[in-house]
């Protein structure tokens, strides 16, 4: 069981690293979605398989994941709000759309800086090492 938990964790860390690399190029809707999904899966995995990790480091990883998740969530919120208003016939030139687009740009830039930082730091190797994977 321990080996299975380790394999699953290593695979999910790898998937997150791939998603972060992709999002570091451009924080578009699809790559943000992929990062969010990869983070959620890894976060759940860490919680579910917590007894199989050497110490409490998995909690620190989850904490870091939640901060990036919040940044990605803020971007998605703007994308969703704009899409729902569009479906209701609100023009792209409406004031509300401009405000949402400005908020999206601000959060998108923050997210891009954050994922690029994650990419530079090479979290993948550090986490695998600390979790003894």
């Amino acid at each position, binding site marked *: *069981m*321990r080996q*299975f*938990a380790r394999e*699953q964790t290593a695979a999910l860390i790898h998937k997150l690293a791939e998603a972060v690399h992709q999002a570091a190029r451009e924080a578009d809707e699809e790559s943000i979605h992929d990062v969010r999904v990869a983070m*959620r*899966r890894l976060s*759940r*995995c860490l919680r*579910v*398989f917590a*007894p*199989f990790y050497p110490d409490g480091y998995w909690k620190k990883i989850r904490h870091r994941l939640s901060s990036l*998740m*919040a940044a990605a*969530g803020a971007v*998605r*919120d*703007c994308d*969703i*709000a704009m899409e*729902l*208003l569009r479906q*209701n016939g*609100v023009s792209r030139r*409406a*004031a*509300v759309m401009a*405000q*949402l687009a400005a*908020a999206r740009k601000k959060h998108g830039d923050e997210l891009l800086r954050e994922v690029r930082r994650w990419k530079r730091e090479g979290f993948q190797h550090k986490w695998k090492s600390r979790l003894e994977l």
Partner: protein
Amino acid sequence: METRGLPAQMEKQAGAVSKPAKPHWNERMGAAANARHELPRLVKEYFAHVRLLLAADPPPPELHVIRLASKRLRYTLELFRDCYGPGFNTRLESLQQLQQLLGEVNDCAAAERLIGELIPKSAARQRYQEYLHRRAGAKAVAVRKEWHESFDAPGRERWWTAYLAKNARR
């Protein structure tokens, strides 16, 4: 969207009700044996939680609690995908379908909140928020229909638990 902006009472409720029971792994058993033992229990508890929550006929924003429980269950189950055959994906798809509807309710509630934060009070803002509120209500009806007529139709809980208890191999 996560739990940002939720009323404190709902946050508390989310914490108390949506968290699935902690799995108890037996280190001496393999992944498949653990899955056969623990996953049916987690699914059974999920059904019980959601039935309880829906019985209270919650307003659309409170379906968020069910969304969290569904998400946690799905990601937990997905960790054991390698242990099961194609029937596993069929079951996950039914959970995903429910999640999709729950996500649509949540999107409306979150967009309504975001617009409230970003846009100064005006007739236009009120119009957008009313639209999103109505839409969330319609999606919430679809969630209940999906739950009662499909996901929790007679025999469906057993369809999940019997499969998970018998078909894990690794």
